[in-house]
């Protein structure tokens, strides 16, 4: 399930180190350029004539799924822990934001931050209980957590149960925000979170998490504090999912137990992470789009959407255990690998430039 060797090490002895380094730097720049182009393209979408407000808010809801799946992927992909309770954090973020806007008329930016922070704090507290558990026990424990949150929002008067809470009109930094505005906000959030995960995975924290995932004992014996790093990962993961929840509450301007009391949200996020490929940057994005768009296109055929989701899930697990993105990336990766190997053998003509950043040794 986990793609343990994305970049790969070269089999042949490296004769031309500088060429390999230059090529690797070039690939890195290409990757970043692709992702940046993706987000710029997304920002330009509302300029297309015929782009309607409802499309914008629909897209913002897709982003909610993606963000939540990204939050979860920090756990499943990079930490090797599985949570089936992230719907609970989504609900916490959503209710925090909704209540803040309703009772304190808070700014959107503030509500988003508060939603993420609240989910993060509760995630940290939950981690103290849950991180004593391994594998399947953790999954069941977190599932129970999602169920608990669902029961609370359903039954505690303050959260107004199935009646729901209507969120008054929004403003961000003093400016009123409409459907298109929320589209921009969601794309910016998506870009920020993607950048954050990109840097997190390549930081010392990310390496510690991956070390714990791949060889727990070895990582611990190298001085990686298991509990500390895993609590951190759980907190970050919960906070990002809480952010997604806050975004969803502010976009739809309505929260209710009907929506957030449903534990199968949690499962949807897991499906998104697994289908897309949770150990890859684009994985949760592809998976989130898949899970969010399926019921949208098959609105009249909800049961058929269920069957399709199940079949797709099983097919992915059988034929692409590291996710759809992994399968898409495979030929490109092979191609780059061949180029790297040729460069290592000194056959690839590479423009000689002193590499700006030494990338040797990083995956």
């Amino acid at each position: 399930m986990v793609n343990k060797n994305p970049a790969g090490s070269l089999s042949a002895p490296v004769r031309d180190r500088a060429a390999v380094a230059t090529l690797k730097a070039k690939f890195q720049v290409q990757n970043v350029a692709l992702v940046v182009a993706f987000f710029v393209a997304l920002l330009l979408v509302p300029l297309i004539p015929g782009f309607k407000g409802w499309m914008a808010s629909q897209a913002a809801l897709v982003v909610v799924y993606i963000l939540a799946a990204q939050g979860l992927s920090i756990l499943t992909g990079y930490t090797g822990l599985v949570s089936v309770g992230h719907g609970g954090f989504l609900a916490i973020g959503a209710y925090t934001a909704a209540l803040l806007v309703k009772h304190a008329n808070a700014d959107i930016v503030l509500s988003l931050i508060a939603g993420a922070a609240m989910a993060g704090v509760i995630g940290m507290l939950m981690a103290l209980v849950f991180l004593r558990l391994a594998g399947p026990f953790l999954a069941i424990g977190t599932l129970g957590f999602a169920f608990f949150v669902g029961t609370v929002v359903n039954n505690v008067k303050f959260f107004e149960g199935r009646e729901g809470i209507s969120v008054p009109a929004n403003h961000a930094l003093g400016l009123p925000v409409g459907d298109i505005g929320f589209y921009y906000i969601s794309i910016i959030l998506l870009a920020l979170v993607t950048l954050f995960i990109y840097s997190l995975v390549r930081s010392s924290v990310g390496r510690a998490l991956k070390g714990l995932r791949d060889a727990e004992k070895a990582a611990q014996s190298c001085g990686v504090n298991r509990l500390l790093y895993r609590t951190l990962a759980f907190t970050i993961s919960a906070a990002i999912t809480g952010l997604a929840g806050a975004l969803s509450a502010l976009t739809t301007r309505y929260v209710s137990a009907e929506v957030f009391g449903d534990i199968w949200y949690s499962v949807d996020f897991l499906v998104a992470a697994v289908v897309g490929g949770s150990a890859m940057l684009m994985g949760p994005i592809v998976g989130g789009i898949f899970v969010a768009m399926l019921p949208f296109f098959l609105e009249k055929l909800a049961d058929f959407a269920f069957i399709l989701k199940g079949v797709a899930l099983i097919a992915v697990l059988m034929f692409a255990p590291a996710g759809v993105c992994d399968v898409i990336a495979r030929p490109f990766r092979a191609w780059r690998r061949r180029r790297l190997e040729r460069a290592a053998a000194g056959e690839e003509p590479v423009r000689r430039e002193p590499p700006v950043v030494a990338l040797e040794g990083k995956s």
Partner: protein
Amino acid sequence: MLSQQIISGLATGSLYALTAIAVVVVFRNTRTINVAQGDFSMLAAFFAVLFLKSGMNYYATIAMTVAATMLLGIVVERLVMRPIADSDWLTLFTATLGVYYIMHGVAGWIWGRDTKAFPVTFDPTPIKLFGTIVSEGHLINMAWAAAIGVVLFVFFKFTKQGIAMRAVTDDPETAKLMGIPVRFIVMLTWGMAGFLGAFAGILIAPILYVSPQMMDEVLIKGYVAAVFGGLYSIPGAIVGALMIGVAENLAGGYLGSHYKTATAFVMIVALLALRPQGLFGIQKRREI
């Protein structure tokens, strides 16, 4: 009042126990947390409705439903679980989730999302037994659950297949070397999940009625109960299930019916915080 609450709690708990045992049996033989367990019961309930409507009597219906659901479990194993049997537990777990979606979708497609009544209902007139008022339905459910418990005990203790199944649980590699057909035993395990699921479905249907989502909550309680047995011990799972049944009934009776579901969560957090290895501990610590 109190004894009445406890009896009806035990009756519900014995139905949770059927799900919990199935979860434990499948997990300890295949490392799979079976999300589709509830759907075996759900489909069994629909099958039973079908058979009853076609004019079969109750016992013939039970026999037919159990056979059909066991077959379903075996089909799931052959088509979905066997090709990926060597994957890590998350893959196996997610695959059963896929099965869950498919079964949910199929049931919703054929029979619709609405809740339907189950044709067989129990006599609601209460019976007085040792000074406590109990209902016939509760007694029947407990009797069935106890009978199934005895059948399982005999199966695991005295039959060749049952002993082989325990051997596979303890050490699949050695079991294979000793000539036990591990694949067949795994298939049998899924058949047993279908068997238990069928009974859970038929017995719960008169209480929860029949709908594609009827088992969702029961499944979660079954998981919690299974964790009480460390996902390993059947007696632990049974005790856990009965405790959950009684505790949530008491919470429902004294705190208000909304708190029923939360009870299971509070219990699991308390348990996991105090005894992560389950109520009875695990005989053998396994690297998962």
